């Protein structure tokens, strides 16, 4: 399984939230979801880790290890970012406003 997984608000079957840290959320502009944004996961030093394209509903999803992360979104309507602190396994929901 190597293809880009579809970005949905639902967590795919087989993901164990007692073992994995999953970062999810929406890219928004003025409160409205932004689909087709390039969402980049940056580590605590600002280094790039992964990138997905937000779904039509603005959703993104990453799997990450514990630590400090920045979710940065690039879109035609502007860029924006938000920080997430991952302490351990579980679901971390963060909105990323752009504009």
């Amino acid at each position, binding site marked *: *399984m*190597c*293809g*880009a*997984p579809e970005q949905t608000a639902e967590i*795919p079957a*087989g*993901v164990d939230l007692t073992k*994995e840290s999953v970062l999810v959320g929406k890219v928004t502009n003025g409160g409205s979801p932004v689909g*087709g944004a*390039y969402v*980049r*996961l940056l*580590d605590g030093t600002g*280094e*790039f*880790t*992964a*990138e*997905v*394209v937000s779904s039509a509903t603005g959703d993104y*999803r*990453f*799997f*990450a*290890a514990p630590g400090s992360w920045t979710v940065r979104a*690039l*879109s*035609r309507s502007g860029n924006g970012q938000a920080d997430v602190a991952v302490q351990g396994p579980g679901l971390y929901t963060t909105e990323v406003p752009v504009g």
Partner: protein
Amino acid sequence: MSRQDALVTADWAEENLDAPGVVFVEVDEDTSAYDGGHIPGAVRIDWKTELQDQVRRDFVDKAGFEKLLSAKGISNDDTVVLYGGNNNWFAAYAYWYFKLYGHTDVKLLDGGRKKWELDGRKLDTAVPERPQTTYSAQEQDLSIRAFRDEAVDAIGTKNLVDVRSPDEFSGKLLAPAHLPQEQAQRGGHIPSALNVPWSKAANEDGTFKSDDELRALYAEQGLDSSRPTIAYCRIGERSSHTWFALHELLGESDVKNYDGSWTEYGSLVGVPVETGDGKS
């Protein structure tokens, strides 16, 4: 090889959309992206179903590549301009693949699909009809492809460049952070490998950094230009991106892509594996 030969800008692409003898080819990780809109006139190649053998873990053979390109309407003397999503990972992989089978004139669109979209350039859903050709491929150029034994032999003697993210390199993760964790049996990296994530070679918009920046990057990370280099990642696509930067942009002479990469190496019985950040 140099930047002028290997890379084209989005402006150049836009001016040459209808140029005779220029074929745009989209190769995406997300193979459905093409359906939602592609560069006008571009054809699609599916890296998974069309470039890979569907039974063995290997590429389609020479005859298979000839059949594929003939069916896509690509001729030996066409200028093939490859582009795709995810910072051109799979387009770079296809570029390497076209070179492997000896295509003369192949280029990568700098920034790929991402820059094209962020620039707000035109996308089209019409699928072009290209007449069938009779494409003739060369035998694989194995001077740019490394196999597992060569990767093992390279420990401590050649530059091994692991282009995965630091957490994959150290063994914390077995796949990039946007994919479910699976694949290789063991986490870690090939001993003596440098960790230079592919992303360090790219700007935020997906374009490649300048030659000077790239040279400084690899020198700073300890790459010894007097030695041959093998790049690897998880399945060989991100390392194609780094192979492209080193071999095609910087003109380093002996650079191979190890397409078996970590999913092969990390599953081999008995080979040395190192964990941690590699700096101790």
